[in-house]
């Protein structure tokens, strides 16, 4: 059953995330495994994640959520990532994570600290809606202080407006 869950999630990821696959920082989306369509659909609660899935599961390996300019709304394309990490938090109550909120360089530094936190909080809420609990999630905003890309361009800015999921306990 666990495999089914993972396959279903992988399928969801592959369809939902194709458009933003190039923006994902951690790992490219794994080549889709053949989905066994003969199996009946099951609810996601039945297969529980284990710590090893953080390194192997194609959804859990994605740890970055991206945002629009001056916005903290969760994009539709991020739902799959938040669903699997939320489920992981629920499956592993001893696990914990820090959400590092970031902004692009436009606008003032202190305002961007606020914006990074707002993005972290929005991500935290989405993870809680997917099964995580508040006690497992710590939000830290770095504002615009830790860009992953240092050019002043739309492409770079879109990579810097992000929340990074960092597991502090598996």
């Amino acid at each position, binding site marked *: 059953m666990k495999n089914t869950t993972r396959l279903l999630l992988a399928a969801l990821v592959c369809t939902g995330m194709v458009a933003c696959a190039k923006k994902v920082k951690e790992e490219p989306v794994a080549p889709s495994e053949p989905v066994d369509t003969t199996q009946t659909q099951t609810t996601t609660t039945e297969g529980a994640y284990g710590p090893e899935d953080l390194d192997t599961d194609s959804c859990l390996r994605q740890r970055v959520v991206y945002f629009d300019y*001056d916005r903290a709304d969760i994009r539709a394309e991020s739902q799959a990532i938040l669903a699997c990490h939320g489920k992981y938090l629920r499956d592993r109550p001893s696990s914990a994570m820090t959400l590092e909120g970031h902004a692009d*360089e*436009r*606008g*003032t*530094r*202190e*305002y961007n*600290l*606020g*914006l990074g*936190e*707002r993005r972290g*909080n929005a991500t935290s809420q989405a993870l809680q809606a997917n099964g995580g609990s508040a006690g497992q999630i710590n*939000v*830290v*905003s*770095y*504002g615009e*202080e*830790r860009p992953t890309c*240092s*050019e*002043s361009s739309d492409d770079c800015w879109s990579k810097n407006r992000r929340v990074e999921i960092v597991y502090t306990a598996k």
Partner: protein
Amino acid sequence: MMRSLSLACLLFVALTGVASAQLKIDITNGNPSATPIAVVPFGAETAGLPPETDVAAVISADFNRSGQFRGLPRQDIVELPTRSADVKYPTWNVLKQDYLVVGRVLDAEGGAYRIEFELLDVAKQSALLRLAVGARPNDLRGAAHQIADLIYEKILNVRGAFWTRIAYITSTGTGQSRQYALMVADSDGYNPQTVVRSREPLLSPNWSPDGKRLAYVSFERGNSSIYIQEISTGSRQVVASYKGINGAPAFSPDGSRLAMTLSMSGNPEIYVMDLASRRTTQITRHFSIDTEAQWTPDGQNLVFTSDRAGKPQLYQVPASGGDPVRVTFSGEYNAKASLAFDGKRIAMAQGGGNVYRIAVLDRSLGGSGEMRTLSPGNLDESPSFAPNGSMILYAAREGSRGVLYAVSTNGAVRQRLVLADGDVREPAWSPFRQR
């Protein structure tokens, strides 16, 4: 005009031998209506070797930077009097100079110097100022800035702000080897000194009103925390390290309180901490981002950034709490206020989308005030007024690095201060220094 100013600047740089790690200053535009003043090279009447610092060049560069004066380029100075008795006024009349400064460096006790100078009115052929300033052997630049301040005040009736300092943040290296530093330098970028160095981000330096301490934000504990550090001793303490954001520290004008942004309630709000008791009072209560509080000079109010209306705008609120009143109405994005000493002029980062510039709102005429753009860049931010309100420092992006600019508040002269290596940002101009 532009050319002669840049020549003067080149000469200035050549004469004083700028070390590569120091801030280099380029004047990017000039002010043709500035008052012409000739600062004649000071005579060296010392027993030993003449001092290395070219005092007259430091003074002249200060004047050029102010936008109010135009120093006569060194190559146009054809006579070299060092005291008023030797001055031939017709020469300076022909050169169209309004004022003339002559002086000499003498030995004082214990290896120190005594700099005597005279400010002369060329048209009236008379002395306006005749003074002497003492200088430690390693601080002739400081003495030169003090002389520039005295002359500036005598002519303009406004206290000079050349003998002041600037604080700023630098970032060098990339990735794992990235280093941040909080620096302090003279107002012209010379004598940079490291106040604190960190592998984690540093931001938002703010001067105590006595100019002896800096409040700033550091991430060295893994989250933002506010520190206050004594500049001369390096001793420091954490004053705020709550859950969430600890940011935007700002000393009250009397130094007894620190305004700050804390998000321990769930989102960023303005608080005021009484520094003696460390007790905090929450000033704003709104689900929006409230941050970047600055004190009005009377200590009665705070001007801060809030996006409660959708986009960031400036608001004012009593420092004891109350209902915020919106201050800025033109421009999509107005943030990070810096108030001039008069409380009437507010500099800010103004913009939207991909363009951010420095604008000044002048509230002296009443109503919602008059807004004027002062900088031409694309990503200009962090304005900071000089303590006399005559100039504004700000941060700009050039390529993928940050640089600092100083612009005269009248917009006439803008100049760049570039660190040889890395990214420079978040300038904060010090208060006046006590003589």
